């Protein structure tokens, strides 16, 4: 693609930028610059009151300018070389202004195209269903993924990780990690075939913590160039050789790239104002450095690991609006609820985030990463179906209506978050032979859908 021609220039910046100690970057450069742009561009999310999906276009535009200014002044940091990777405003704007407004992934009849969306856009978001890195035992791995792949509303699947491989412990940057990457490819592809969707795009290589598994499992016979390959940016705005190795491989093989940056509420970026600025800046830097096709920023709470707290949600909403109004970037929202399968709270959290994302102009939805993605096997395909149904029903909804609905949903679960209702594991909510939800989980799903209909959501 035309934006990937700058690979050598990006790699050069990691070798030639000014040398800075990492502690200086974390302790002073990032927080000080965020505070400076926050003040300069007057970013105060408290001004929107209790609103979670604000309707303030001027605020969204100032937030975009603040994120762009931060990208220009701060750049990114390469941990391997201790160098700042800096860019001029024009160098940053050029790729943003030519970024494609759509990207296709998946193969043959299962190909899907993700499109740029606007705020309150009636077009459907792309649905990328899956457990997003949640660890799953090896014997359940195929079945869990088939439970997602069989859901027709899912446009792509985002894989879980494996607890063990061939019964052995998986160790980072070892042959076991390479074997796990391959096992992920074999089993998720088998799951898609069994579900009748052999060309479904797979979010991969989820088990590739390091570069070795990505490079190996995305070679001949493994994941294809038409799957969507993940490259992370380390918080805050950091990369290293391992990640740049992945990037270089993916660029030279012409693969679809999805990159993400997961900032932490209360971390170096501070509270919700800094987090909103960081989300915008993060997406800009992901485009700048990783030449990525789709972008996501999944902030998390430092004690709950979720993104469904109102203070995080409002930052996500305004940042998505800022990017929707001012850029061509294809941005996704990851849903990371505290609740797990078999609980109503998981569905309330998922619905709130899906409605927020739809009204705020996000292009795709990823997840849900149920039980915050930390409890083994606490994921199932049903919550992804629910996420898709709500997202599609919310397409075209005004921010005002979305805000009202989201606030009502948040009120239902907010006080339960710190109790961490992780719910039940996959075998406790699905029949492992028929791969259908068990009656109690199906009943909860039907009940919450009914509640949402009564709240005014146009669910079928």
């Amino acid at each position, binding site marked *: 693609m035309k934006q990937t021609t700058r690979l050598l220039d990006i790699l050069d910046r990691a070798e030639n930028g000014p040398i800075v100690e990492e502690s200086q970057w974390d302790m002073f450069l990032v927080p000080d610059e965020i505070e400076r742009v926050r003040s300069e561009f007057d970013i105060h999310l408290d001004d929107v009151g209790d609103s979670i999906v604000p309707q303030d276009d001027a605020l969204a535009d100032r937030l975009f300018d603040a994120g762009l200014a931060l990208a220009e002044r701060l750049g990114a940091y390469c941990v391997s070389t201790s160098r700042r990777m800096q860019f001029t405003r024009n160098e940053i704007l050029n790729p943003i202004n030519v970024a494609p407004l759509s990207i296709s992934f998946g193969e043959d009849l299962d190909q899907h195209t993700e499109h740029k969306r606007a705020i309150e856009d009636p077009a459907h978001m792309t649905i990328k269903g899956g457990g997003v890195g949640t660890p799953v035992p090896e014997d359940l791995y195929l079945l869990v993924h088939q439970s997602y792949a069989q859901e027709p509303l899912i446009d792509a699947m985002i894989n879980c990780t494996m607890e063990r491989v061939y019964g052995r412990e998986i160790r980072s940057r070892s042959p076991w990690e390479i074997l796990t990457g391959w096992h992920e490819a074999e089993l998720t592809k088998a799951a898609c075939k069994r579900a009748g969707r052999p060309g479904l795009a797979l979010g991969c290589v989820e088990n590739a913590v390091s570069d070795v598994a990505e490079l190996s499992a995305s070679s001949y016979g493994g994941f294809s160039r038409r799957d969507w390959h993940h490259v992370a940016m380390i918080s805050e705005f950091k990369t290293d050789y391992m990640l740049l190795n992945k990037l270089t491989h993916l660029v030279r093989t012409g693969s679809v790239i999805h990159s993400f940056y997961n900032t932490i509420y209360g971390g170096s970026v501070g509270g919700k104002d800094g987090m909103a600025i960081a989300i915008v800046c993060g997406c800009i830097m992901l485009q700048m450095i990783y030449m990525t096709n789709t972008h996501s920023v999944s902030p998390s709470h430092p*004690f709950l690991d979720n993104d469904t707290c109102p203070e995080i949600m409002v930052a996500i909403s305004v940042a998505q609006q800022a990017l929707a109004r001012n850029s061509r970037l294809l941005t996704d929202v990851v849903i990371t609820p505290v609740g797990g399968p078999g609980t109503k709270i998981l569905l309330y959290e998922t619905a709130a985030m899906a409605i927020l994302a739809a009204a705020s102009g996000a292009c795709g939805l990823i997840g849900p990463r149920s039980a915050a993605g930390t409890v083994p096997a606490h994921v199932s395909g049903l919550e992804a179906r629910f996420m898709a149904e709500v997202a599609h029903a919310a397409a075209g909804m005004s921010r005002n209506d979305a805000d009202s609905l989201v606030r009502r949903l948040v009120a239902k679960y907010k006080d339960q978050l710190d109790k961490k209702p992780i719910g039940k594991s996959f075998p406790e909510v699905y029949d492992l032979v028929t791969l259908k939800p068990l009656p109690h989980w199906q009943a909860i799903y039907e009940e919450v859908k009914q509640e949402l209909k009564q709240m005014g959501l146009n669910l079928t």
Partner: protein
Amino acid sequence: MSISKDMKTEYQKQLHLAIQAGSADKGIELARNALDKGLVPVEFFEEIIQPVLEDLGDRFSRLEAFLPELMRGGMVVKAVQEKVLEPIIHEQSDEMASRGKIIIGTCQGDIHDIGKNMVALMLQVNGFSVVDLGTSVSSRDFIEAAKRENADIIAMSTLITPSMPFMKDVIARLDSLGLRDRFKIITGGAPVTREWANEIGADGFGEDAVEAVEACRQLMGV
């Protein structure tokens, strides 16, 4: 000497301002000024530094203060200790009030460090002496550092499942070296559970930064 309540409040306020400004120099100047006026180092630590840092830790646990302030608190206090308090204490052969020395790092293969940084800083602001080995630390390096620093606790963190086995390696290696009883082990990180910590024979587990501090307090009996 005992200091007046007003004086204590003023010094605490000045230290808080130095932390907010991220100015080690201001912190050092404040400590020197207080010692010139007759405070002894242990008094300055217990009456001024500890209450300010505990307040900072409490505010962070309620998310009223954020990581940068915590980092600056750790940086300013470390500078005050190293440049002002410890040299005098060493001269007087006295003991500085520390709750214990902790070696901390993210396990081999994992480059994530924000969670680990939060724990390190919360430990520091709660009176522990902390040596941060950074990210992707091998089991050998954890042990060598613990021996070198004469640490009390080895604290290991990871955000990713494939780095968890390296926690087990540290304990196995300590066993094989006959050093298991010399160091307490605490583990944490998103995929790490209390059950896993028990299974590998760790002495403590912290689900988050606040719990990690409490676990270390219990291990040290402070």
